[in-house]
């Protein structure tokens, strides 16, 4: 194969016009020059992808990614479960609109608690807490059987200034503290306070509190966002 023919084959491969058999042949070929030509066309054509107007994914997609890669562990090589599809219907509930950038203007009362669904024999319950200013939601995963909560955060812009963000479970209309969010970008796993019942559909909320968290056992600062716990298999 001469250089021209190789380059055209690489171009057709990158465009995707080859039929399945020809495509497999290219995949199987152990030809560094063909590989290099393929990378060259990939680079050239990528600008066509990047010029499209961006589309922000719903927070539930990130939640699915976080769930699939697990907390701290490298993922297994199996495909992720299909539960994301099931979630599509719940996604609106999981997507929240208020972020740290808005908290100062926000003086509305906390959102009314949702009707708590029937408790489910849960492996884990998860929620995506949207923080639009950061571009990626934080996630909360609760494993009631192990009495454990995992928080994934991406950090806040100015940790010194903002006080602490405190997470609440709204249980029977009453908030119960689930602890403070770390200010840096981390995943932390902690024990849950004892005696709580968690169920899919329950509301969790985040309030902005003085350093160290609320001293009264209830939110004292503005509720900046809330989310619904979803069953995660």
């Amino acid at each position: 194969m001469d250089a021209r023919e190789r380059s055209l084959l690489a171009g057709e491969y990158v465009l995707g016009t080859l039929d399945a058999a020809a495509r497999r042949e290219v995949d199987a070929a152990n030809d560094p020059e063909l590989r290099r030509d393929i990378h060259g066309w990939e680079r050239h054509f990528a600008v066509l992808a990047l010029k499209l107007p961006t589309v922000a994914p719903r927070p539930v997609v990130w939640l699915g990614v976080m769930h699939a890669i697990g907390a701290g562990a490298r993922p297994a090589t199996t495909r992720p479960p299909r539960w994301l599809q099931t979630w599509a219907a719940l996604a609106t509930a999981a997507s929240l609109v208020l972020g740290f950038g808005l908290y100062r203007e926000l003086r509305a009362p906390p959102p009314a608690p949702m009707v708590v669904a029937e408790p489910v024999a849960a492996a884990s319950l998860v929620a995506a807490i949207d923080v639009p200013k950061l571009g990626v939601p934080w996630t909360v995963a609760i494993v009631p059987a192990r009495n454990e909560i995992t928080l994934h955060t991406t950090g806040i812009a100015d940790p010194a200034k903002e006080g602490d963000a405190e997470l609440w479970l709204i249980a029977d209309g009453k908030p119960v503290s689930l602890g403070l969010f770390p200010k840096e970008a981390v995943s932390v796993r902690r024990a849950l306070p004892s005696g709580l019942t968690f169920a899919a559909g329950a509301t969790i909320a985040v309030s902005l509190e003085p350093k160290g968290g609320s001293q009264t056992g209830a939110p004292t600062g503005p509720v900046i966002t809330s989310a619904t716990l979803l069953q995660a298999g």
Partner: protein
Amino acid sequence: MNRPELPDQELADLLAASARGDQAAFARVYALASPHLLALLVRMLKRMDWAEEALQDCFMRIWRHSDSYAPDRGSPMAWLSTIARYRALDLLRARRPEIIEAEAPDDAPAAAEHEDETARPDLRAAEHEGLVRLEGCMERLSADERRSVLLAYYEGYTHSEMAARLATPLGTVKSWVRRGLQQLRDCLGSA
């Protein structure tokens, strides 16, 4: 999306950190890249539910293979978009019959050629330069050649699908694509 753009080096560093298992860095990669990747996936797959599922697949792959990014693959964002595009091609191969039915009978490539103005401010300088260069070279193609290259890129058509879609003989479509690629190669130089 109105988010601060990171220089390529920083995105490359984030990928390197992801490869070491740093989930916070990976979250930044997701925040920066996912709106670009989803745009391409929606464009190719036509359905938001498939596109978001594919996006999740892509980021699984990116998490596993973030150590395989190297500068010869282009900018980090170009490499990420290539992962998304191949994922979409795989899905199209598996699901094409349904998609063709779901598709509106409009002229897709015409839309592709008019989408650029709104999006351009979002591109990094290096990518903007690459786009100007590619589009400059695209200008030299005949209308048929340009259309067939763009149809292949954005719709993921194989030669035979494109022949059916354009009601044009397979041989003609193949030679449009090949002549288009040949001229791009001559114009772009290094491919």
